[in-house]
């Protein structure tokens, strides 16, 4: 049956990826004795949280056959708004942060409206909002930074709880929730249905439109939360925050086995993809490879992993 082949190819990609990750971890540990230490690994968790949050939500987006290029800009807009609400409008910081997250989520909702209601292809719609939201961040901030937050605010981005970086817990909760929603709920299955065949999903009585709205809103929400964490981590706001984040997130999701054409993908795969990229960045750096060499390696790994996965996967359309 088709669905069996489907599930088999899923596991296959993740197995390959897990092996690649293990191989990378072993190889990188051999290069530097400072790589495989608890402190370093936890610290890497801290650094990958923002991309991680966005990538988890992006898994839904891509599995539904869409894409969201505006996440980096939503992150920048949220960051700027926290500063503006708190500093310029004198709103108390928790409320300011909540409001900013609200606006970021609204940004995602608007993406959803344009895509689901107006039928604009996601790539194009979010290309437009990529420019729009970044432009709003630049216009609102007038290139001014806001810093000097109260100490408690830094707990989120720089502090720890029971030895774990605070934001890693956030990512953990986020990923678990997302896994449950995607694999165990009707709503999650709808995402796959929309991604593999939108018309069939519509005729099956699934609410395609509402599901898309929810997916893009969630993506905006995740990007907004990532924005708050980022401000807390670096203790200032800038309108160029999060530039290029969308490409990192998409790389992680696709490396994790989510098909860019929609219909398949798992959170576990995305998390593995994230771990692979982050350990390559960190491990290669510790092993003495320079940053520009590292991005060459990441680009090559991306192409080779997908190529290998395609060669080994047995469900054999010559093309998608």
């Amino acid at each position, binding site marked *: 049956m088709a669905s069996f082949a489907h599930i088999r190819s899923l596991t296959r990609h993740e197995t390959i990826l897990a092996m690649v990750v293990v191989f990378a971890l072993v190889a990188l540990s051999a290069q530097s004795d400072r790589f495989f230490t608890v402190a370093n690994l936890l610290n890497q968790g801290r650094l990958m949280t923002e991309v991680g949050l966005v990538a988890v939500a992006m898994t839904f987006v891509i599995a539904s056959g869409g*894409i969201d290029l505006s996440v980096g800009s939503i992150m920048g807009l949220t960051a700027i708004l926290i500063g503006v609400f708190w500093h310029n409008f004198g709103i108390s910081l928790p409320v300011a942060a909540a409001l900013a997250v609200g606006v970021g989520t609204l940004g995602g909702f608007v993406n959803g409206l*344009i895509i689901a209601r*107006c*039928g*604009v*292809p996601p*790539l*194009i*719609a979010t*290309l*437009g*909002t*990529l*420019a*729009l*939201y*970044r*432009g*709003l961040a*630049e*216009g609102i901030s*007038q*290139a001014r930074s806001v810093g000097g937050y109260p100490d408690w605010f830094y707990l989120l981005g720089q502090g720890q709880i029971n030895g774990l970086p605070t934001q890693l817990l956030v990512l953990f909760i986020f990923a678990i929730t997302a896994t449950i929603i995607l694999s165990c709920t009707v709503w999650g299955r709808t995402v796959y249905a929309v991604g593999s065949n939108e018309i069939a999903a519509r005729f099956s009585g699934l609410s395609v*439109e509402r599901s898309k709205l929810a997916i893009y809103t969630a993506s905006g929400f995740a990007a907004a939360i990532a924005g708050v964490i980022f401000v807390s981590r670096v203790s200032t706001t800038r309108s160029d925050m999060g530039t290029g984040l969308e*490409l990192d997130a*998409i*790389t992680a999701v*696709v490396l994790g086995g989510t*098909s*860019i*054409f929609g219909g398949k993908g798992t959170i576990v795969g995305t998390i593995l993809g994230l771990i692979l990229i982050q350990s390559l960045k960190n491990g290669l750096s510790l092993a003495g490879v*320079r940053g*520009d*060499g*590292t*991005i*060459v390696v*990441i*680009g*090559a790994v*991306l*192409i080779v992993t*997908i*190529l290998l996965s*395609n060669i080994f996967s047995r469900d054999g359309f*010559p*093309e*998608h």
Partner: protein
Amino acid sequence: MTATTDDTQAAPLPGKGNAFIRYAYRSYGQELTILCAILIMFVSVGLYSPRFLSFDNLNSIFAGNAYIAVAAIGMSMLIITGQIDVSVGALIGVLATISGTLAVSGYPVWLAWLMPVVIGMAINAVVGILVAYGRIPSIIATLGMLSVLKGGLVSVTGGAWISNLPPDFLLAQRVMLGVPFPILAMIVLTVFASVWLKYSALGRSLYAIGGNREAALAAGIRIQRRIVMVFTIHGAFAGLATILFATQLQVIQSTVPPNLELTIITAAVIGGVSVLGGTGTVIGSTLAAILFATIGSALIFTNVSAYWLRAVIGLLILITVLADMMRRRKVWG
């Protein structure tokens, strides 16, 4: 896609009774819309500041941004076929560095002009093979390529300036037949590409692949070969754009131009390519590149704070696309 029947019934076809206008509107609605926007910009900014319409300024608007239009031609073909390339900015940076290095190393200038085209085609043929035969989605293959090209360029050159370019090399500064070379190149390439797309069997097959893959397959189109072909052609246009880009100034900086790929993709998209797949013309993308250049220049002439520039461009993308969606619904119901 849903509940638009009211619109269809209520809106009569524009220019009803005049077959030519109706034909033009149906086939080139997006292009006409952009053309109107450009003309209105010219008139209104020209009224505000007459120097906007001076020969020099028109020359900088058209010639200074011709390379974007040329690169957008190749990108349009790619998008029409249902592919995308996010590495084109990095590719142009690499090719410009190669071209400049050849020129200052004493190779004949024709070779310095030819090599970017050849190497661009070779690199993108590899990407095309990865996409068509390796079954890697183009956004992923080119995302990977972006990292490889960018990291590679930084490793090799360290961003050094190339400054002793021979005067013969500076093709983009020449004037031919009374027209600055970049404008001439932009017009010739746009016309050539649009005729090829519209009237040749190969060109038509790109629309078929982008519009309905299964139907194209059933019609006997060899999709994989066509995809490699369109990537290679896109590489050639990236190479041609590089020539205009690299020969514009007396110095070349060996870096990746920031956000160039986004500008090129946006020009192709605003130009009407791909909004519903399998449609679009390169005339539209060239007009869109000109529209961007016009807006950029108009912002300076009208003292609009550049802080809001990006927001304006974003709105423009959204409104153009939404307008296009509405237009299609009205015309085709």
